[in-house]
């Protein structure tokens, strides 16, 4: 019998933490064996657990950790096309292919993410306004369906299964392998322009004016600043540096300095992060990032500043935190302002708030991005958090905005369905692929995508 271990696991936010039967197959056949064995009522795949909420946990059922199925299968050096198992991490892809002149087509703010996880949440990066989501750079997926067959899907073959699986949060099957297109680079460096913006209006104007000129763009927003300063921010726009533009002091253009990693070995006491300390941090961040042009930085520092501190999530203490990411269509900017106002008034300070303009969404039925504005923040778990988040959800829905499965931990079914109108199509495909309901997660049940009690 495939061995499992009962573990209390959570997403990256550490909340909610629930007991699941965790499997970790090390052989390709292993996943099919776990599903076929059927000792648990249902299962969900889990990559590196970097989703914040409950999308990769499954209380009362099984969780299949895919991280040991991380073999690369083929690489086309001319086209930059990589075929690999779904457990390969973005870090491994960077380590292997940056020195050969290839970079990820799309990357989230951490490289400790698996290819399977990147597809299942159809993740986006700082280049969404130019390049779209990760799923839009996937040529092919092999999927182990819950009934045990293996099917290949792509934008041309089994198209419906493909776009249900891209952003399908693991509910259509287990992604075994994927073929992805990398992008050419000639250096491992990014040149960044920083622009300070005194408030939200200034920021939105700056983004509208400059976004098309840069491949990457994202703004850090001070959530403590109120009134006329609401939305005080630093816009950071970047592009890859061409090898011939890179000053010689950087040495070999495709290698970057090795960094030692810092670690947060245990949960810090929650009181360390309070409105005062976060406010001080935010002021400091603003002060040390005056407007300046053409700062050269390596890709690691630019894309993954938080990865330098291992287990940084423990900084929020043992109660954990929720991450909240809401995306509003262009005509819902008012909702964005109200959400910021609500947050800054609540004292539920956020350590990190990030604002970005999104481009048009992908064809993924449950894929998150829509053309508009996305705001992401951390909210430490304290009394009343569920109510606070549910109220925020209502606000988001009212302005036709939507929340992101990779971050969510509280949204209710009615609200989720309103945010994701294509849920009906998704359910129809899911019913065909998974008639017995073998794939389920806490999020899937909580948001009403799948029937069943949220927790047993």
């Amino acid at each position, binding site marked *: 019998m495939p*061995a499992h271990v009962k573990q209390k696991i959570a997403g990256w936010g550490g909340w909610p933490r629930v007991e699941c039967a965790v499997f970790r197959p*090390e*052989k*390709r056949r292993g996943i099919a064996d776990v599903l076929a064995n059927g000792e648990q009522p249902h299962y969900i795949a889990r990559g590196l657990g970097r989703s914040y909420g409950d999308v990769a946990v499954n209380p009362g059922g099984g969780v299949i950790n895919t991280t040991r199925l991380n*073999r*690369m299968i*083929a690489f086309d050096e001319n086209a930059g096309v990589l075929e690999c198992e779904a457990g390969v991490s973005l870090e491994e892809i960077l380590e292997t292919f940056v020195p050969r002149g290839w970079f990820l087509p799309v990357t989230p703010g951490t490289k400790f993410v698996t290819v399977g996880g990147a597809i299942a949440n159809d993740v986006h990066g700082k280049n969404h306004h130019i390049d779209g989501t990760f799923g839009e750079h996937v040529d092919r997926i092999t999927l182990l369906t819950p009934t045990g067959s293996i099917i290949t899907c792509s934008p041309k073959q089994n198209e419906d299964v493909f776009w249900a699986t891209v952003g399908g949060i693991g509910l259509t099957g287990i992604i075994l392998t994927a073929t992805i297109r990398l992008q050419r680079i000639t250096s491992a460096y990014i040149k960044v322009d920083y622009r300070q913006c005194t408030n939200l209006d200034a920021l939105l104007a700056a983004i509208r004016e400059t976004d098309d000129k840069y491949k990457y763009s994202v703004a850090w927003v001070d959530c403590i600043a109120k009134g006329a300063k609401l939305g005080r921010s630093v816009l950071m726009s970047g592009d890859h540096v061409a090898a011939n533009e890179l000053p010689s002091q950087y040495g070999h253009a495709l290698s970057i300095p090795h960094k030692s990693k810092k670690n947060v070995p245990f949960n810090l006491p929650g009181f360390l992060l309070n409105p005062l300390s976060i406010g001080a941090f935010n002021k400091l961040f603003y002060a040390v990032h005056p407007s300046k042009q053409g700062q050269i930085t390596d890709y690691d520092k630019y894309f993954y500043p938080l990865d330098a501190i291992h287990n940084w999530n423990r900084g929020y203490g043992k109660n954990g935190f929720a991450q909240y990411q809401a995306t509003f269509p262009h005509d819902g900017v008012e909702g964005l302002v109200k959400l910021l106002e609500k947050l800054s008034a609540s004292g539920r300070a956020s350590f990190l708030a990030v604002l970005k303009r999104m481009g048009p969404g992908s064809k993924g039925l449950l894929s998150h991005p829509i053309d508009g504005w996305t705001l992401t923040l951390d909210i430490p778990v304290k009394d009343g958090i569920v109510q606070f988040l549910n109220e925020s959800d209502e606000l988001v829905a009212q302005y036709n905005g939507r929340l992101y499965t990779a971050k969510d931990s509280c949204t209710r079914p009615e609200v989720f369905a309103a945010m994701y109108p294509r849920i009906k199509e998704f359910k129809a495909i899911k019913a065909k692929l998974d008639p017995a309901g073998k794939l389920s997660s806490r999020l899937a049940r909580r948001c009403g995508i799948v029937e069943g009690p949220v927790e047993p």
Partner: protein
Amino acid sequence: MSNSVAIAATAAPVSGPGTVIVIGVTSAIARALAGEFAKHGHDLIVASRDIEETNAIATDLSVRHNVKVISKYFEAEIFGTHATFVDECIRDANGSLDGVVIGFGFMDEQSVAEAKFEVARRTIDVNVTATISVCEKFATQFETTRRGFIIGISSVAGDRGRQTNYIYGASKAAMTTYLQGLRNRLFKSGVHVLTVKPGFVDTKMTFGLPLPGPLVATPEAAARAIYNANEAKKNTAYVPWFWRYIMLIIGSIPEFQFKKMKL
């Protein structure tokens, strides 16, 4: 002694990284160690009893590191197949053989090994008999070419017998002693033998065991430590290093006390 040193120093010169053979490559430690060697430019021959998985691992290593990787079938318990296996490895390394890693090993729960003799026997067959069978053949080859290394993955469990895993422990004690003697014999031929004693490594052998988290190493970290120990020509490497001290303490408890303890 000084004589031996002189002989060791005149061993055949090595020109660039050659081929390393990793047997039992479906072990996460062995796979990661194969990756360390490939990263440093070595071609590889990898083997295990699961040819499909071995092929997947071989392809992965060659895609990641741009080295040549050959995969082979190897079953530890069918001793009669070992001579052909070793001959083929030597042939395929084509004169560039640098060394061999013994990565296969077997452990079942102590209670199972106590109750079922075939499990106890398999523990000895895989960890001891097969190790000896394979290593003797490579040793003879390395003696003739006067170069090479053998890395054997033993265990801290062989340092002291404990009620919770003494059958596996006994097999690892035998393996450690065997490698020690082999090191002594091959020294004069310039051949290095490294005994690796992992503490806890997060692999399928230990998945699900209630281990103290901070003491458990990742296979990748273990592999880096093993690679470095081999480069430094260490004789015994505790992995991670602090296990040397843990075992020193465990080893220093007098037997009359130790026998009463639950460890």
